[in-house]
């Protein structure tokens, strides 16, 4: 069920991402609902469904975005690996891990986007990319952490009720 759940969750989140979040700017940065939801799920899941979630999220965003070379898919898979590693280290403080993983995730994903775009010939200056896109996106994602975390926590409790009671 956890695998199948990725489809409705990320379809809804992708629609919200392109319809709402991409139009809410702080300077030129925008929030990444899909990434935050993926981070929250990876921190909560009991198994290997996070990889499937990362695949679904990456493919959906790669499909709607003009970002070349499936960069979102690669970014989300790398992020999932890092968050799973992080979960083992700071498992006693999930909220702290959530904030930490979101911060790391924003930097990793945006850095991958930047590298891929620069690699394909898009003229993006480093300093402006950092100050006008990456840092504002970082701030928006930090603001979005708590609400997304609460929703995904409830979802995880629905999917893994027995494990939670133990």
């Amino acid at each position: 069920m956890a695998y199948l759940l990725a489809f409705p969750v990320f379809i809804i989140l992708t629609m919200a991402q392109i319809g709402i979040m991409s139009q809410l700017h702080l300077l030129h940065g925008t929030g990444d609902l899909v990434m935050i939801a993926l981070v929250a799920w990876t921190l909560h899941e009991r198994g290997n469904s996070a990889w499937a979630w990362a695949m679904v999220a990456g493919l959906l965003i790669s499909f709607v975005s003009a970002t070349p070379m499936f960069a979102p898919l690669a970014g989300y898979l790398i992020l999932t690996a890092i968050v799973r590693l992080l979960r083992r280290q700071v498992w006693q403080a999930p909220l702290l891990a959530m904030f930490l993983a979101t911060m790391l995730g924003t930097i990793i994903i945006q850095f991958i986007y930047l590298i891929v775009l620069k690699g394909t010939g898009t003229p993006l200056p480093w300093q402006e990319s950092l100050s006008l896109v990456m840092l504002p996106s970082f701030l928006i994602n930090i603001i979005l952490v708590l609400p997304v975390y609460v929703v995904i926590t409830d979802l995880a409790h629905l999917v893994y009720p027995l494990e939670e009671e133990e």
Partner: protein
Amino acid sequence: MKTTFPRLLQTVVLLVVVSGVLLLALSGYLAPVFRVALRPFITVQGWLSNRYMALQEFFTVPRDVALLRQRNTELENQVSQLQTQVIQLQQQLREAQILYALLDFARARPENEYVAAAVIGRDPNPFIQYIIIDKGSDDGIRHGMPVITEQGLVGRVDAVTAGASRIQLIVDANSAVNVRIQSTQTNALLSGSLTGDINLQEVPQDVVIQSGELVLTSGLGGDYPADVLIGQVVTVRKSDTDLFQTASVQPAVDFTALRAVLVVMNFKPVDIVPLIPTPSH
């Protein structure tokens, strides 16, 4: 006779007394007397009336409150529905105004065929400037078709699905448009940037550019039709050490508030890539 007289006298006396009392009452002389005499009655009447009213309210008011609450809820619901309708109508009015403007633009250029489309999203990657519209290959849209509004050039179709298309805006950092400065007829290259600003590049040093000059598409390269408005020159940057001068352009289209666009259907972009000479090995 003896009995009749006293009766008559009694009647006359009674009439005189009654008339006197009436006259005194009508002339106001008996008011203090009445006031004193009626006060106990009025007090009792008031007490009785108050008790009755209290009793009546006790039995009837709770029912009225329930009724009022019900009515209030109904009215609140009605107000909410009307507010929703007002918002919907305002939304429809805004959309209609935009569509009317696009229709006027299309009517003014009967040589072109257009398809109007609504903007339904933006690219999730903040480094690039793309929009998503609600028309796709089912509506005849193909890759490379130019996209405009009544204000000017928007961009071109980058990817198409059956029901939606992705448009690369001219403000995208990877966008390049061949343009012409209207007053001097000078050709130049217009490129986007990360910040959404657009700049004229490769303008020869000997060309004099003034701020406010109009920038139009030149049609060179075959990507866009000629003479579509792009914007106005704002500032010119010229350095003696550079080969070319550059200028920043204020776009005619407000890209942050794009809601509907027109796709030019009868313009077929020309792929000139095979004609570009490649360095021989």
